[in-house]
């Protein structure tokens, strides 16, 4: 099928959860005014870690029990934080899209449940440490450490029977499909930072091949957990900081003095919908999804991005969108502030855009939210959608100067943006690029 014969697919509902709050508006307002959501970790004492700052969503800002129907409230007890974030984001997306689902009303749903899919990116969910250790501690004896024999015989019984189900990555999609009664194709993509973009790519293809009219799609992850944070330390990607000083200038995307990234909890769910379905129900789409490219890096380590793979993904996305480099009005890169990853992104973008790269403004999100891994791509795409709607480039935090790209610290500004390119390399080497287009009135 030629690209221009494919069904047009739009983003018709946006729900994000970040350190700045629930929904796109608090995030956008913070990005317009240049206010970071990063802070010294409060959920546990991070003093033992080299990197002690992250993006945390306040507990008071959100209660998952309030966004699920009464029939599903009991199930919230077996939701890990990642799932709570996804369920919360889905509720916001559904409200934003203006559709009725099983969760929102007893009225008939706007969309046929069998024609609504769900693709959600998820991470390696780390068990909640205190919950697990409460059980593990029953199998220790003074001075002899943990006793596996005792654990097998008695200790494990102190763990909740449904404990495992809390931590399966597909539980994000599972709960969302139950809450909103989505019975169409469903998938869980586990590709670190690329998981969101790849999930949205799957939703778009499912709609284009007419297996669904719409999908709840995106990703969410909580990296503000001692084990998850430790795993990120193992990658050597985190910026050392004890939380003192200016927290808005720790992550320096494309900066010469970049020292690493910071983690966050968050993500988002979008309603991805065929333009036909959205038009029929008089929806108000945010933007079109015009092209997507997916590739794999084969660098020497799964932790390093490969410029060739990134270049390919961008070229594929732009070819499918039938757009020239001159059509791109802004770029949302991963911009993690990790030197080797930033370099690969810069090299790839330079390959595609040449010298004009320096005049295309970048929108960088991680200095505001932290790297929310599987949820990060949805945040980037939601911000791109908002930028297209508002015709604004939000303020950037980070470096005073960057080399070869327009990514240095700056104030927000108005802009004329027809298309935005979102680029995501991931730990593990998967790359995804997406071209979003402005809705023409």
């Amino acid at each position, binding site marked *: 099928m030629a690209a221009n014969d494919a069904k047009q697919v739009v983003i018709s509902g946006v729900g994000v959860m970040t350190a700045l709050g629930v929904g796109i508006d608090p995030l956008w307002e913070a990005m317009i005014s240049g206010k970071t959501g990063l802070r010294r970790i409060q959920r546990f004492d*991070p*003093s*033992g870690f080299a990197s002690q700052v992250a993006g945390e969503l306040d507990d008071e800002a959100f209660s998952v029990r309030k966004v699920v129907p009464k029939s599903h409230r009991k199930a919230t007890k077996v939701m890990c934080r990642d799932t709570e974030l996804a369920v919360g984001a889905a509720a916001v997306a559904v409200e934003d899209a203006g559709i009725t689902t099983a969760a929102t009303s007893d009225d008939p749903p706007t969309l046929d449940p069998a024609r609504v899919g769900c693709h959600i990116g998820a991470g390696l969910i780390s068990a909640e440490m205190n919950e697990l250790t409460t059980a593990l501690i029953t199998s220790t004896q003074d001075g002899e450490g943990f006793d*596996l024999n005792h654990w097998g015989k008695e200790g494990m019984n102190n763990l909740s029977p449904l404990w495992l189900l809390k931590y399966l990555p597909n539980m994000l999609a599972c709960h969302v499909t139950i809450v909103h009664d*989505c019975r*169409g194709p469903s998938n869980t993509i586990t590709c670190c930072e690329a998981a969101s973009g790849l999930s949205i790519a*799957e939703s778009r293809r499912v709609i284009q091949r007419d297996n669904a009219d719409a999908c709840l799609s995106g990703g969410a992850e909580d990296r503000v957990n001692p084990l998850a944070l430790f795993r990120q330390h193992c990658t050597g990607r985190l910026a050392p900081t004890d939380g003192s000083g200016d927290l808005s200038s720790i992550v320096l995307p494309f900066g010469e003095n970049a020292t690493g990234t910071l983690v966050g909890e968050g993500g988002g769910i979008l309603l991805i919908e065929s333009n036909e379905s959205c038009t029929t129900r008089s929806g108000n789409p945010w933007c079109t999804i015009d092209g997507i490219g997916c590739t*794999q890096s*084969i660098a020497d380590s799964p932790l390093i991005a490969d410029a060739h793979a990134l270049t390919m993904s961008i070229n594929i996305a732009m070819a499918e969108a039938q757009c020239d480099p001159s059509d791109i009005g802004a770029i949302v890169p991963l911009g993690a502030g990790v030197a080797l990853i930033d370099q690969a992104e810069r090299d790839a973008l330079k390959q595609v855009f040449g010298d004009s790269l320096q005049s295309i403004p970048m929108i960088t999100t991680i200095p505001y939210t932290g790297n929310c891994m599987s949820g990060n791509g949805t945040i980037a795409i939601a911000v791109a959608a908002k930028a297209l709607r508002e015709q604004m480039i939000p303020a950037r935090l980070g470096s005073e100067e960057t080399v070869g790209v327009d990514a240095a610290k700056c104030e927000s500004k108005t802009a004329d943006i027809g298309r935005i390119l979102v680029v995501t390399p991931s730990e593990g080497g998967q790359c995804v690029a997406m071209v979003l287009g402005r809705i023409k009135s």
Partner: protein
Amino acid sequence: MTRVVITGMGWITPLGNDLTTVWNRMCKGESGIAMIDRFEASNFPTKFAGQVRDFDWKLHVQDYTVHHSPARNSQYALGAAKQAWEQAGLHDYNDLNSDRAGIYLGAGEGVLDFKVYSNITTEMWEDEACKVDTVGWARLASEQLDKWGEIEQEPNVPLWHIAREYGLQGPAFNCLTACAASTQAIGEATNVLHRGDADLMISGGTHTMLHPLGVTGFNRLTALSTFDGDPTKASKPFSRDRGGFVMGEGSGMLVLETLEHAQHRGAEPIAEIIGFGSSADAYRITDLHPDGRGPAAAMNGALAQAGIDPLELKHDRPQVHYISAHGTGTQENDSIESMAIKKVFGEHAKDVPISSIKSMMGHLIAAAGSVELITCIMSMQTNTLVPTINLDKPDPELDLDYIPNESRESKIDVCMSNSFGFGGQNNTLVVRRFET
């Protein structure tokens, strides 16, 4: 629509580590289930599993030093992928466009070092506060947990190992929809080829949950068999006295390519993927919908894409000649899967032979669907159907043909493979003997 064919396959399983050995053992109805010796499980409610044995991943790669320290799931993936790669003749083919060759896996997570983790978290437990001292924990973790061991736990790392080994840079995805993951991966890889985004895909699954925390999790769910007797008799899908599933581990990998690409390079197609269906139960996190609506929707979707009407006979027999069942051996799964098959095939359901190889090798979780699809293809190649073993006490409520205990010969041209995941993600593939 672009035709998608399979040109290579390989597996690492509890029954062996090559196609022929495993197939011959399944035809004889042998079991790969034995007492767990990977860790001290003698006091666990479940003490047995299907464990991969006698496997050295370093013999399956060109240069093991480029792979750092692969976790078991990555090791199994490399072993299975090498078999598939070679069967597809790709080791002798120098013109592969690696930018048009991708990977879609249904790989599970790596393995937490439970011994170290348990020791350091309990050592740092503060009784009065009822919490772990995370400051001390971070110090002990950095001293005692292996850095690469932690990185390898990300479920997308097996994908990187395969990409690195074979230099593949095309579309790359990893999905983890519990027990349905590798069937879903193969279905989605087929879609990648249908839409022209790649010429060739490596697809399949790899997983091990054979570690103390994995067995603990499933024991607490009461999903695992706690059979107290000969472990080879423990996995009893469709039997009246079935008591839960038996854990297995391993990997199945396949080379999928467009027919045009296979023919262009002179590769011999083994089978053709003609249908894929996917659905969500949207019911409960622990249970399948009692009407079997999710599994039935997945089967109907796959059959519709394959152009097969399950209610119509062809040459006086159902058009599907074998179903590789999800068949876990839990009361609920086997009942609802049987009901869903009846719903889809109507009065012809009793005439479609069905078996569960989980009776012989256990449940490979994310990798289960890939080895079950390979079983379907081997059935077509040999015109032999492998049995459901340990089916000595038929369940009167389950009245389909489950190929009890002994393999049988039959002309097999079309097979269907079912996989249903915890959480309600359901996937079905339909494959056909290749015909030009």
